[in-house]
């Protein structure tokens, strides 16, 4: 065991326990930023973090109680009466009733998935003569890309279609956030960093025109992710809320 600072992914020394470290709150600075990026880019990592949170959560039973002063409830109660932003979509809540639109979205996603899964493999291109210097990066798209963004138990996969000719990205209707939150869409491409594409609408399909900077991230193999943010989206340019759905882009 050395006294040097040990990098989180230094092989052969410490095991990679970043999911547990994030769940426990041990990380700060760059390490925390790396862990949050992995939450978005690696569904398995996000599941591990959930698992550790639940495991450590069992420990709360051992936490000693303490009595707050009665004034706290009075303050909380008063705060609820403070004027709030009107809630137009208050009836739309996740995971309760799925409107008919969702069934349509689901059918579209199923068709897209079938196209992606059943499509015969393209003929192997002649190997490029140039040597590959590093790990292969996602390939730049010449054709349409699709993704099935899977929200797990919150509902069926949501389909996303990207047309490189118009730089248009269309995400089918889905209710992923309630009225008190916004569902924000992110692309994680070759640079491994989430870039915001915008907020998903609470009703109907969402369409985005992808900016030139974000277009560089869009490629087969890149990940689309949805996080739950405060209404209006993350103010920081990086996801702050939980990632609730992810899907990889594939060529059609």
């Amino acid at each position: 065991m050395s006294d040097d600072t040990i990098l989180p992914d230094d092989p052969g020394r410490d095991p990679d326990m970043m999911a547990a470290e994030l769940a426990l709150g041990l990380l700060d600075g760059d390490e925390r930023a790396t862990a949050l990026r992995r939450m978005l880019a690696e569904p398995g990592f996000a599941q591990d973090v959930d698992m550790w949170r639940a495991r450590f959560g069992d420990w709360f039973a051992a936490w000693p109680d303490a009595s707050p002063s009665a004034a706290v409830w009075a303050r909380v109660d008063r705060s609820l009466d403070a004027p709030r932003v009107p809630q137009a979509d208050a009836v739309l809540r996740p995971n309760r009733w799925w409107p008919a639109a969702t069934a349509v979205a689901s059918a579209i996603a199923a068709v897209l998935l079938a196209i992606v899964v059943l499509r015969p493999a393209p003929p192997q291109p002649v190997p490029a003569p140039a040597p590959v210097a590093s790990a292969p990066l996602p390939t730049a798209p010449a054709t349409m890309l699709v993704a099935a963004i899977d929200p797990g138990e919150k509902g069926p996969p949501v389909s996303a279609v990207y047309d490189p000719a118009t730089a248009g990205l269309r995400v089918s209707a889905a209710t992923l956030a309630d009225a008190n939150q916004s569902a924000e869409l992110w692309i994680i491409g070759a640079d491994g960093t989430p870039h915001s594409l915008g907020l998903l609408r609470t009703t109907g399909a969402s369409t985005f025109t992808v900016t030139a900077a974000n277009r560089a991230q869009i490629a087969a193999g890149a990940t689309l992710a949805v996080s739950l943010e405060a209404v209006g989206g993350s103010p920081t340019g990086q996801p702050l809320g939980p990632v609730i759905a992810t899907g990889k882009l594939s060529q059609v």
Partner: protein
Amino acid sequence: MTDQRPPLPPETADISAARARLVEMLLRTGDEDRAAFRDLYQLTSAKLFGITFRICGERQAAEDVLHDVYLTIWKRAGAYEPSRASPITWLATIARNRAIDWRRAQATRRTSHLDDIPPLADSTPLASETMIVDQDARQLHTCLETLEQRQREAIRTAFFDGVTYAELAEQQNVPLGTMKSWVRRGMLKLKECLQR
């Protein structure tokens, strides 16, 4: 998970009933039912205040954070999913994270950190750990016992005090890399034990 287990002993059945009640209150809170929210506060505020008080280390700040925690719960209850987390874990995690945010903001605001952070309210809170009847929690406890003491203590301190690696290393007066190594190896062992 629970539905495949043999009949529950009475004390566990009580816990299940209490949990079911909390779930219902949380779901009703998500529908903006203020009476349910008030009941939820009465049932859970002592636990959540215990968390914010210990991590913040001072009463006034802990009450301010608690206020903020319940407003967060009111706003986010609609997104609570019973299948993903037990209600108390969901609530307590919000309280713990908010208290940690407060504590770290304090530490950043002051130039020198550790010496200025208020002392912890209580450094040995875990007497009740042996009385935990929940099966999963008991497994966590059993598995922690298999770790080296310094690993166990570091993980425990991180959880109950909400501290970072840097703070742990300074408290224990060991190099940062050493502390990371202890904790990572401890957590790997813990994971292997929990998966058995």
